C-alpha cells in the first residue's frame, strides 16, 4: 500500500511539474506545484484504499490540496490559483467523463448515465472541498507568512 502511494506520488509529481510548464508557471514554483498536486492525489488514493466512495475520496483530496495551496500561497507570496490550477488535474474525473462520452456513442444509455452522474458528483465534491477551505479565515494562514521585506522591490 505504502509502495503504491509512493509510486503514485512520484508519477503525479512529475506529471504536474510537466503540466505547470505548459501554464508558464515561473520555474521557482514547479516543485511546489508538483508537491501540492501529488499530496492531494495521494490523499485521494489513500481514502479510496480505506474504502471511501469515489466522491468522498475526491472531497478528501480536494480539501488537502486546497489547504496545502493556501499554506504555500502564504509562504511563497503567490496567488493560490497557481498551485490549484496545476494540482487539480489528477483529481478531475476525466475517466468518467471519457467513459460517459464513449457510452453515448455506443448507445448504452444506462452506463452513460452512471458514469455521467459519477463525474458530476466528483466535480461537485471537489468544488465543495475547495469552497470550504477557501472560506477559512485568512488569519489562520497568516502564521505561515514570511516576515521579510524582500518582496518590496523585485
Amino acid at each position, binding site marked *: 500500500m505504502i509502495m503504491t502511494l509512493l509510486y503514485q506520488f512520484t508519477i503525479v509529481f512529475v506529471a504536474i511539474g510537466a503540466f505547470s510548464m505548459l501554464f508558464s508557471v515561473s520555474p521557482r514554483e514547479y516543485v511546489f506545484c508538483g508537491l501540492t498536486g501529488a499530496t492531494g492525489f495521494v490523499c485521494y488514493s489513500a481514502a479510496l484504499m480505506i474504502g471511501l466512495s469515489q466522491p468522498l475520496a475526491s472531497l478528501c483530496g480536494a480539501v488537502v490540496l486546497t489547504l496545502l495551496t493556501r499554506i504555500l500561497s502564504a509562504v511563497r507570496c503567490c496567488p493560490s490559483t497557481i498551485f490549484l490550477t496545476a494540482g487539480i488535474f489528477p483529481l478531475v474525473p476525466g475517466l468518467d467523463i*471519457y467513459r460517459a462520452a464513449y457510452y453515448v456513442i455506443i448507445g448504452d444509455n444506462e452506463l452513460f448515465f452512471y458514469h455521467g452522474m459519477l463525474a458530476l458528483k466528483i466535480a461537485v465534491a471537489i468544488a465543495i472541498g475547495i469552497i470550504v477551505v477557501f472560506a477559512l479565515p485568512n488569519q489562520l494562514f497568516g502564521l505561515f507568512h514570511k516576515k521579510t521585506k524582500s518582496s518590496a522591490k523585485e
Partner: protein
Amino acid sequence: MDASTTEQRIMNLCIRMGNLLLVNGGEVFRVQETMDRVAHAYQLENVYLYVLTNGIFASMESDRHNPITHLRCVPTTNVHLGRLAALNALSRDIEQHRLDLETAEQRLAEIEQLPFFPARFRPLACAIGSACFALLFNGSIGDALIAFIAGCLLQLFAIGMMSRNMNKLVYYMLSGAIVATTCLVLTQFGNYLLPLLHFTMEKSMLGGVISLVPGIALTTAIRDFSLGDYLAGNIRLLDAMFIGGSIALGVGLVLALGNFFLGVGL
C-alpha cells in the same frame, strides 16, 4: 485638469491590470479584488466595477459631469500563471509600499512582456505529463509510450494552430480526434507487434486527452457560483461543457469509425 489626468492614468493602470489578469487565467473575484485594491491604494473614490469571465466594466465618478468609464472585452484566454503571480506581487506592492504611478506602470509593462514557456519544449512537457497520467490510470509502459506520442502530437498541433484564428470548438474537436486516432492506430499495431506490453486504448487515450480537459474551468465555475457570481459562473460552466463536449465528440467520432471499420472495442 491635472488631477483628472492623474485619475485617468490610475484608471488606466487599474483596467490594464484587470484585463491582463483575466486574459492570463485569473478568476473573476481576483480581478475584482485586485482592481479595487489598486484604486483604493491611489485614493480613488467612487470606483464601480463589474467583472465577468469575458469582460470588465469599470467606471469612476470623481465629479458628477465627467465620469470616466472603461470597458474591456476579453474573448480569449491564454493561461500564463507566471504573469498572474507577477501581477499579484505588483498589486501587493502598490498597496503596501505605496509604489508611485510611474514605477507601477513600468512594472506592468514588464509583466506584459513576460515570455511564455518556450514553444520548442512544450511538446516534450506535454508528452511527459501525458505519459505519467497514462501510468497513473494503471496503464502499462506501452500505454505510457503511446500517450507520450499523443501528447507530443497534441502540442505540435496546438503550436501550429496558435497563429491561425481557429474556432475554439473545432480546435478541441480536432485535438480529441488527433489523440484518439494516434491511440487507436498505435494500440492496434502495438498489440499486433508486441502483445507482451498489454496495450489498452482507454489508458493511453486518457493520458493523451487529460491536458485538454477543462477541469479547472468546471471547479472555478462552481466557486463563482458559491461567491454569488452567477453570470460569470454560468459563462465558465458553459465554456467547460462545450469544450468537454467537443473533445468527447472528436474522440467519439474516431472511436465510432474505428468500431465500424476495424471492429475495435473499448
